[in-house]
Every structure is written in C-alpha cells, then in structure tokens.
C-alpha cells in the first residue's frame, strides 16, 4: 500500500446534508485525485490536485468541491448530498515528475462507501 487512508470508510446520510470525505497520504505525493465508482461507469474523475491549494475539475465535478491545504490531505465535500451521489469514492495519489519514466502509477486508497437516503 502507498500509505493512503480514507475516512470514513462507510457513511449513510440524508439528502440535502453536507458531507466531507477525507483522504490522507504519507508518501508526499504531489498529485491527488478523487474518483467515484459506479456499476457500468468504471472510475470517473471528480476533482484532482497538482499541489497544495492547486486543484482542478474532473469529468463529474458538479455538486462536489475539494480543498488541499496540506500535501498529505485532500478533502472532498458534497455541498448538499443527493441520492445520485450514492457511490463508492476512491482517493488516489501519484508522485510528481509528469509523463516520463516510472512516475505514471496512481496508487488508490481503500475507498469510502457513501449512501445518500
């Protein structure tokens, strides 16, 4: 494992409530990513970060926001949870160095199962 933890691991919440998921890494990796995994859709990128306070949107960013105030922590917030956001959320990290050599691998955390009722 690349030293990635996610919390909580399971959460049940109600529609309309805010939810924050946390990703913590001990590898000092520059890049961090949030994905959601749904049957038939694979892994879809929500947001990613390329450094402290540097974040950008992925393909399914509506309804989500992120923050990265420290290298090791990347937070995903569902501002007002909806049932369509019921999913398994994965955090991933990647070391720096861009496209070359052995710097391409993304390391995934264990996931958070979120249910929005």
């Amino acid at each position, binding site marked *: 494992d690349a030293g*990635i933890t996610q919390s909580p691991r399971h959460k049940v919440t109600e529609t309309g409530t805010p939810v924050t998921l946390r990703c913590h890494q001990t590898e000092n990796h520059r*890049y961090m*990513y949030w994905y959601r995994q749904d049957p*038939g*859709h*694979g*892994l*879809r*990128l929500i947001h*990613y970060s*390329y450094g402290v306070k540097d974040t950008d949107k*992925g393909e399914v960013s509506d309804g989500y926001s992120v923050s990265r105030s420290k290298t090791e922590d990347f937070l995903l917030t569902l501002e007002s949870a909806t049932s369509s956001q019921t999913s398994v959320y*994965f955090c*991933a990290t*990647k070391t720096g160095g*861009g*496209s070359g050599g052995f710097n*391409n*691998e*993304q*390391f*995934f*955390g*264990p*996931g958070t199962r979120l249910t929005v009722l």
Partner: protein
Amino acid sequence: QQQVKQSPQSLIVQKGGISIINCAYENTAFDYFPWYQQFPGKGPALLIAIRPDVSEKKEGRFTISFNKSAKQFSLHIMDSQPGDSATYFCAGREWSDYKLSFGAGTTVTVRA
C-alpha cells in the same frame, strides 16, 4: 462520454483457460495505457502498462497486446486462476496530462 470503451462487461472462464478483455480508445494523444486490477472491497492497483511504441508487453501470465492503427489494446490472462477473479480496468492518458481516463471495467470470474 467515455474516452476508453471496454468489453466485455463480465466474463467467466474455467481454471487454466485464457481471459481476454478488449479496450478501444478515441484520443490519439494517449501515450500511456495501464491496466488496473481490483479485488472486492479494495482499491484498484496497477497490474501492467504499455506505451504505444511497442505492440506487446508480458509480465508473468498477463500480456497486453497493442494495435496502434486500430486504436485498440487488450489484456490476456493466460492459465487463469481463481485468484485472478477480480474487476479489471483499462485506461489511457495523454502525454501532457496527469489524468487517467478509465474504461467501464470487466468483472472476471475464474471457476475452479
């Protein structure tokens, strides 16, 4: 829309058989094609990867075949074992980018 299309959605193979998963991509700027393996309740993990300047890469029982002109690549699992039962994702990435575009995944079940 998904930039990488993966098939089949699921497959069942007998122990010792060959599992074949196919992927097709649209983006000709992709220069790196990894396969990830995911066991139930776990996060995906890198299995094997290829660049488009080679047509085949083999690591143990796992082989990627790559056809640049057809914009297709596939994963072959030789001598499939029950421990290979997992979900497999193909992906592609542009040389200038840090993001992966994943296929929808294939669930492989190896029957003993």
